[in-house]
């Protein structure tokens, strides 16, 4: 019965959420309607959490980062230009919070260690699946050899599928700058893979050492 009530409440909230556009929710938030801001939290918490997780690679940290980012966003809504898309503005706060977290966590710690294969990510089972998981891990390890800025644009583009114009808003640069930054980041990733993970490059052509 309790579960039913919870579901019922969630369904009612969801129905209400759908009726509110971002702009309506933002206007209501500016008028002091905290619940309206909750609609935006509900709507964007997943992409925000994923963005934070990609940068921090730590679920707990990503959760903290997201919560703080939403609170900050709410606190600074006065500066948000109504009519502009909310998601990139929010993601900008999230990614900056996440980057600050990573940097202050300790530059020497290295993201590589935190990206060691995890049970959830490296599934046991058929050899092919294991190989695929290892390949993914190697790509992530290669990415961790890039700067935080390089990783950020790669994550936004290739992991969160944001279009370049939205990435531009997230990182506060012009679209042309995003294009060139992406190109440079891809180039550097390409170099890292070729130099350190040649199997990834050669695999398709059967050029591995094995």
């Amino acid at each position: 019965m309790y579960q039913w009530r919870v579901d019922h409440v969630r369904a009612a909230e969801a129905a209400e959420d759908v009726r509110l556009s971002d702009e309506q929710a933002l206007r209501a938030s500016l008028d002091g309607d905290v619940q309206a801001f909750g609609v935006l939290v509900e709507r964007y918490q997943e992409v925000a959490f994923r963005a934070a997780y990609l940068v921090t690679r730590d679920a707990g940290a990503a959760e903290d980062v997201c919560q703080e980012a939403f609170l900050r966003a709410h606190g600074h809504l006065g500066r948000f230009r109504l009519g502009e898309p909310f998601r990139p503005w929010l993601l900008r706060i999230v990614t900056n919070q996440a980057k600050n977290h990573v940097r202050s966590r300790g530059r020497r710690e290295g993201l590589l260690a935190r990206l060691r294969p995890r049970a959830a990510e490296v599934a046991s089972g058929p050899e092919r699946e294991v190989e695929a998981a290892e390949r993914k891990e190697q790509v992530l390890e290669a990415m961790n050899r890039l700067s935080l800025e390089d990783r950020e644009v790669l994550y936004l583009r290739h992991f969160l599928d944001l279009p370049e114009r939205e990435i531009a808003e997230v990182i506060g640069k012009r679209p042309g700058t995003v294009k060139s930054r992406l190109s440079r980041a891809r180039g550097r990733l390409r170099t890292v893979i070729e130099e350190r993970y040649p199997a990834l490059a050669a695999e398709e052509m059967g050029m591995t050492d094995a």
Partner: protein
Amino acid sequence: MPDRVERIDDRRLDLLLAQAAQGVAYPSTPALRGRVVAALGSEPAGRRAPAFALPAWAYVAVAVLALAGALALALPGPREAVADFFGFVPGQRIEVLPASDETPSPTATPTRTPHPPAVIGTPFPTASPRPTPVARRIAPALSAQAMGYEPALPSGVGEPEALYVVRYGGQPLLIAIYEDFDLWQNRGSGFFGKGVPADIIIEQPKVNGRDAFWIEPGGHETAFFDEDGNEVRGSRRTVESNVLIWRGEETYYRIETELSLAEALAIAETLP
């Protein structure tokens, strides 16, 4: 090792990235709505905005020549950035924006701002006719001689990795490079303009009871202005890190860092 390095074409790279993206096992998204709403209570949105809430690209003209000039040109990414800008070491993080003799953006010129700038300290007394300062690395023992006073350095953070002195408009600025932050200081006066986008967070904390500005995140424009409010040619750039600016007893300070405000304040408060 393979006999030769295999090149990865765009298609292969896209495939690898797509596979990696699909392979990320995201933890379950936490339900943040309730917590955020509870934390907000009845606080009106936008309440945390500073008292002088700025319109888009409004100007916060902050004194601090010292930092100013230098800051105006170097990036956070410490030594390489500083050295790079001044032509010592090749780097890749410096971004110098169009010079002022190009058509300025309507919001990037102080004279066009609809609100008077908030100013800490006194205005920059002399125009800087030359846009390119020259910085040099100096030994700590020579810093007092170079600056004309005994520079103070924060305690509890160890020794700086390097010290640079840059002259801007004839006035020396000291840049102390630490692992996690750059500290700029100067006792001259100056006029430092920033183009601050609307979504940049500006706080007005206190450092030892004195007014300060905290600006985060990076990505905001900064430029150096002469006494007539004219942007010094070539001084515009984008600051990529968080910035804490304040004036101590006699000295202007500026910290560029990726540290948090609390951490930056802890450092700042060890300075006189």
